[in-house]
């Protein structure tokens, strides 16, 4: 799985960080998403999928199977 984030769409909600803190963080100053793990390990995939689903900016894209 590859994770791609679109900073321009991110509204700094931090919902992704609540769900998958190992994969996402936020910049200190404006809360924009920081991708910690572009290719997260298997055991994190379901949390990442959930984070992508709940992200209110639709800013998290997943490329599965790679």
């Amino acid at each position, binding site marked *: 799985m590859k994770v791609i984030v679109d900073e321009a*769409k991110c*509204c*700094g*909600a*931090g*919902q992704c*960080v*609540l769900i998958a803190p190992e994969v996402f963080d*936020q910049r*200190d*100053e*404006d*809360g924009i998403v920081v991708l910690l793990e572009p290719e997260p390990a298997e055991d994190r995939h*379901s949390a990442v*999928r*959930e984070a992508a*689903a*709940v*992200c*209110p*900016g*639709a800013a998290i*894209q997943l490329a599965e199977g790679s």
Partner: protein
Amino acid sequence: MNRVLIVGASAGGLITAEALRRAGYRGALTLVGDEPHPPYDRPPLSKQILTGEWEPGRLPLRRDDDIEALGLDLRLGVAATGLDVAGRAVELADGARVPYDGLVVATGVRSRRLPGSEGVTGIHTLRTLDDALTLKDRLRPGRRLVIVGAGFVGAEVAAVARGLGVAVTMLEAGPVPMAQAVGEQAGRFLAQVHRDHGVDLRTGAAVREVVGAGGAVSGVRLGDGTVLPADDVLVAIGSVPNTGWLEGSGLPLADGLVCDEFSAAAPGVYGAGDVARWHNPLFGTAMRLEHRTNAAEQGMAVARNLLSPEARRPFAPVPYFWSDQYDMKIQAYGHLRGHDEAVVVDGDIAQRRFLLAYRTDERLTGVLSVGMPPKTLRAWRAMIAAGAAWAHAVSTAAARP
């Protein structure tokens, strides 16, 4: 569970569908929506779409192939018109009758209108992409926009319109704008920000009628007879849940579809998103939220509960919303409505950088921040989720460096 029907093809409906598939549901999945567009996002309508920063092509919530991969029976541009709860079927405007084992109601809300405003050029509401594109075309330097209602949608449009050089008058019936939603302090602060940006904000203003000539709007008449001239009028006086198609079905309706703590309205029938009024056990009260993240979280909770009736979990989120006005980001967690007290616990309102904490009874029930690093909110969110006592929360905050 072999046939799931979701009515409403926006954030709530689409995310429910995705969550069902992620959870392994392989049965028939029908998603019905009355808008012609594939599911798109609404918050940018009063932000990046209105400013022109984004093309409408950026609005879809998912790429076409991601939607394709869900294996949906996707029916766009067709409204649900009736529900037969006993017969477990929904009637559509095209005459189809769609049977279901599980039904998700995600029909959202529509803008409340002023009587007599139908079909008059220059009178706007803002809920759909088409609304946003129509309004955007009319916002040009030197034109006069009157906004009826100083809620979040009205305030965001005021900010964008000022940025585009439009003369803006914003009317609020109450003494302080947004006070119901965020309290008097935050409301007074926001009022000042809008005035500083040149918005003619009038509080205590009752609108009697919209005036026009030849099918086009020319102004707004106030209760005292004053007429405010306008090229355009945005009516932003709140919204009405889209539950018309459920009337007569026997489902409980009261400013939304009434659901229990599992988001269920009847056996096998769930509500998600703006349309659903459910009992949030975290705050011990019924609420109906018009927040983008809630639509997603509730959709995910509904998918879980629908698929595992024996292991249902109450939906008990900490609500979250944000709003962008001028260069400010406003963020709030919790249930602010009906609070007893709001206190600045960090920063300074005069500096336009602050964090307000909200007390209801002896509990911390919400926080709202302006201009603060968003990460500072996380600790507060955790305390709200834990039901922290007010005294404890405020003293913990004071002890933080």
